[in-house]
């Protein structure tokens, strides 16, 4: 262990602002990317299912006219 205490770890030898800024932005943007990527599949499938419902409705209304 390189740090004597938790406070020393947080202080990063006086470079706390820069080190934690770098790590914060990195894991923050990775988190957003991961959540967005995981949600993509559901969004795509919902979009497709809406299309299916639209198509079926179209077919029905065509069938009623004739």
């Amino acid at each position, binding site marked *: *262990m*390189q*740090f004597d205490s938790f406070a020393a*770890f947080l202080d*990063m*030898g*006086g*470079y706390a602002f*820069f*080190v934690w*800024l*770098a*790590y914060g*932005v*990195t894991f923050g*943007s*990775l988190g957003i*990317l*991961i959540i967005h*990527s*995981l949600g*993509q*599949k*559901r*969004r*795509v*499938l*919902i*979009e*497709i*299912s*809406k*299309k*299916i419902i639209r198509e079926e409705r179209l077919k029905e209304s065509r069938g009623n006219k004739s």
Partner: protein
Amino acid sequence: MWKWLNSYADPERSYNLAGKMLPWFACLAIALIGVGTTWGMLYAPMDYQQGDSFRIIYIHVPAASMSMAAYMGMATASFIGLVWQIKAADWAAASIAPIGAVITFIALFTGAAWGKPMWGTWWVWDARLTSELVLLFLYLGVIALYASFEDKVLAARAAGILAIVGVINIPIIKYSVEWWSSLHQPATIKITEKSTMTGDMLYPLLINIFGFGMMIGALTLVRFRAEVLARNGMRPWVRELAKAEAAK
């Protein structure tokens, strides 16, 4: 062999294969980045000149090197898609682009946050930094081109050509610190000779580089699966999945 390989270009098979590979990539990524970051932050010795600010290296170097590796992956996929007309390769390229853009942004941002305390400036217009910024714009260009055509076969062709032409930027980034004088230091990790870094500092760095690679792989698989579904909405197996998802 071609016949065997081509069977994996089938959308349903590539979708299922990606699903099988995903947990391996994801678990390896989490384990490696967890170990590498903890080791680097807590146990790696302090740099005698830079103090603890050097600990930014454990995300900066993995992000920077993987931003180039991801670009090569994307350009290779685009090339395969263009030459052999394999749509799954085009979809893979389209899946990598946004991930590469985020990784490149991380490389630039952590570089700035490291540059401020060490060089006294967030940004300089020198060769390494500028060429890495060009890489970010190349990724954004590929994303924008792919998004701007309704016909995705055409979109993949346009974005693919840009991706392949952009490969010229990769050696420029790599050798910029040797060709031009720069504030940025030259490479520390060397493959052919001994690295100019002690093992206690180097091993967590190598672990994190590998971990970032696995993470990019895992995210590519996740996005690839969604892309396969989006491009095959008319196929019965995708429609079944869509109906099941809507029923939830």
